[in-house]
């Protein structure tokens, strides 16, 4: 059973807790694949999606997850809320709690903002991505996809490719994968690789061909184009030449390699279109799995019991 008040990151979860969430997501996926995608499980519960950063995929995914479970969900974009009038995060959180909100799903550009909110309000908090800290639901859906496609996580060689320094997806993936026994490689330019990252139990590569050799899974990160202005790499052309995942490079990996990308993609920069749309890619399925994982979390955080009950 999941006993936590909040889901702030994978760093604090045990392997058992991670597996329990993934197990719970499996029947949830069945609901999404049905013709009538609606169960009454979370009827009477309310979920607020509090997004301080633009997001289509994650916000919609949470919203649909709540709706498929019959919870009431409300979206707040910081640009149209009292945040622009200078309201503090705590005050916003308390206001939402006073309206009876059970779960706040928060996306924020500041690392630690969900932890800060969780400390200050009684409602449950789900981190939907905070700064460069964690994006736990993304990592959970990545793990779910890998488990589904590969039969398990333990023993897999997973290469995370791209901007490791600023990526919350990379951090959450590293925690989740290492906890579940995968071998993790990180590969990217030296300027976008944190010093001491090896201490998290990963291998560091700066040569993509070496990093991809015999990989079971390649998780390609989105390269933020504004990093170029700050001088982390000279041009997208050079980035693509050194670190872009092309069809030729894919051949270094295992023949049944799985390609993931959290989206949105810069096609032709970090990933070639034919790889994104190719046979190895599970990028669209990741999106489906994202809804399932988020349904599982909403269910578990509102005190969900046995799984059979959830899908009735």
């Amino acid at each position, binding site marked *: 059973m999941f006993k936590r008040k909040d889901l702030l990151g994978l760093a604090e979860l045990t392997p058992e807790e991670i597996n329990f969430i993934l197990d719970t997501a499996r029947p949830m996926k069945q609901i999404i694949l049905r013709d009538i995608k609606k169960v009454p499980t979370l009827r009477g519960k309310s979920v607020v999606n509090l997004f301080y950063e633009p997001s289509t995929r994650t916000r919609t995914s949470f919203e649909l997850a709540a709706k498929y479970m019959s919870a009431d969900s409300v979206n707040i974009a910081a640009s149209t809320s009292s945040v622009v009038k200078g309201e503090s*995060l705590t005050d916003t959180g308390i206001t939402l709690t006073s309206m009876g909100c059970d779960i706040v799903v928060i996306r924020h550009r500041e*690392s*630690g903002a969900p*932890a800060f909110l969780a400390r200050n309000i009684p409602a449950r908090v789900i981190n939907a991505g905070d700064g460069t800290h964690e994006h736990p639901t993304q990592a959970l859906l990545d793990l779910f996809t890998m488990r589904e496609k590969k039969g398990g996580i333990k023993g897999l060689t997973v290469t995370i490719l791209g901007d490791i320094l600023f990526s919350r997806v990379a951090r959450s993936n590293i925690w989740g994968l290492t906890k579940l026994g995968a071998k993790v490689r990180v590969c990217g330019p030296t300027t976008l690789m944190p*010093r001491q990252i090896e201490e998290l139990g990963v291998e560091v590569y700066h040569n993509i061909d070496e990093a991809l050799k015999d990989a079971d899974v390649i998780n390609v990160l989105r390269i933020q184009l504004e990093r170029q202005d700050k001088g982390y790499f000279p041009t997208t052309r050079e980035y693509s030449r050194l670190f872009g995942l092309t069809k030729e490079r894919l051949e270094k990996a295992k023949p049944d390699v799985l390609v993931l990308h959290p989206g949105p993609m810069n096609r032709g920069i970090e990933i070639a279109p034919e790889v994104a749309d190719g046979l190895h890619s599970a990028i669209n399925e990741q999106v489906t799995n994202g809804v399932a994982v988020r349904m599982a979390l909403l269910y578990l955080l509102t005190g969900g019991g046995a799984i059979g009950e959830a899908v009735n």
Partner: protein
Amino acid sequence: MKLLIKGGRVIDPAQGIDEITDVLVENGIIVQVGADISSEGAEVFQASGKLVCPGFIDMHVHLREPGLEAKETIATGTRAAAAGGFASVACMPNTLPVADNRAVINFIRNQAQAEGVVNVWPIGAITKGSQGKELAEIGDMFYSGAKAISDDGHPVMNGEVMRCAMDYAKMFDLPIISHCEDLNLAAGGNMNEGLTSVVLGLQGIPAAAEEVMVARDIILARLTGCKLHICHVSTAGSVELVRQAKKEGLPVTAEVTPHHLTLTEKAVEGYDPSTKVNPPLRSLEDVAALKKGLQDGTIDCIVTDHAPHTVEEKAVEYGHAPCGIVGLETAVPLVWQALVIEGVLTPAQLVEKFTVKPAGILGLDRGTLIPGKPADITILDETAEETVDVNSFYSKGKNSPYHGWKLKCLPVATIVGGKVVMTDGKLTKSMEERI
């Protein structure tokens, strides 16, 4: 009016005194240090079992007045100082307006006269508005009582401006107190760069951001001959640079804060904004190097960098919170634990770092109990213990990461110019009423 401090362990490093004896004060001046002084006509302060030291001097605080009175005022900041055992504070010029001219320096001195309870020594800005561009009226401020100049919080990035400031300040023998931080290397940073910053996803501030500026300013001190005091040294590399500069005989001094001696970057885990400070809390290796630097004399003095903020300003996302820790009311017991109990410094060495050393750097006629000096005295009780409660601070600032810590060796009396302003952690009645 006579005051006899009887039977305490008197520690006065300037005179090499560390013995149980008496101190006699008359009309605000130390008149005698010696055994069995007659108490005739004198009020007696029983100090047996206590440490009697020259009045402690904190040469780096932010009193926030004028302009930022929601954070702190000269009245509340000097009360916090008295409660923490400090008889003198030197206040940084980053007020609103900036203390970059005689008018603001005079305002601070007048306000301290009117409402303060300890000595306040103003520090003037190096450049107008601490903008790092044009020199402030350094001479005018010097003649109005500024004891040093600093653009603390706003490092002078332009090397040529710093060179001119040093050349100019030398005319008045004024020390430049340099906040060493390369703003480009530190840009966007919230904490020390290291594994913890990677895990927390907070952008790191590398040690190099401090060290390149320490190196630059030492080189400029060599060029100009100006007295250079390095603010809040926080990294092992900075300690080594200062050590080499001293070995070379350059007029370079340095300070360290209690928080850089007692906390590491690990304290940031959990994103408590009270741990956000500039320079950031560093690694365990840095803390060890700072202690070594104090021990071998590389680091001259201990300062709080007392930086009060309102609760509202600090109770926000980590990245949005302003930098700063309040230190006046916790400094002495914190460093007693970290330095004396752990055997880094003797009690006399610790007292030196709070008294004669900062007095020497600022050119103050204080920091010792030599007869004829103003009677600033700090009395400590090694055995007294207390649990830190930010809500009982005299300071308006509650931004302390030490809330709930149990501390030992408390200041039990602060005497300023012969007047007892604090006993047992509480302001004396006449001082309480002084607003």
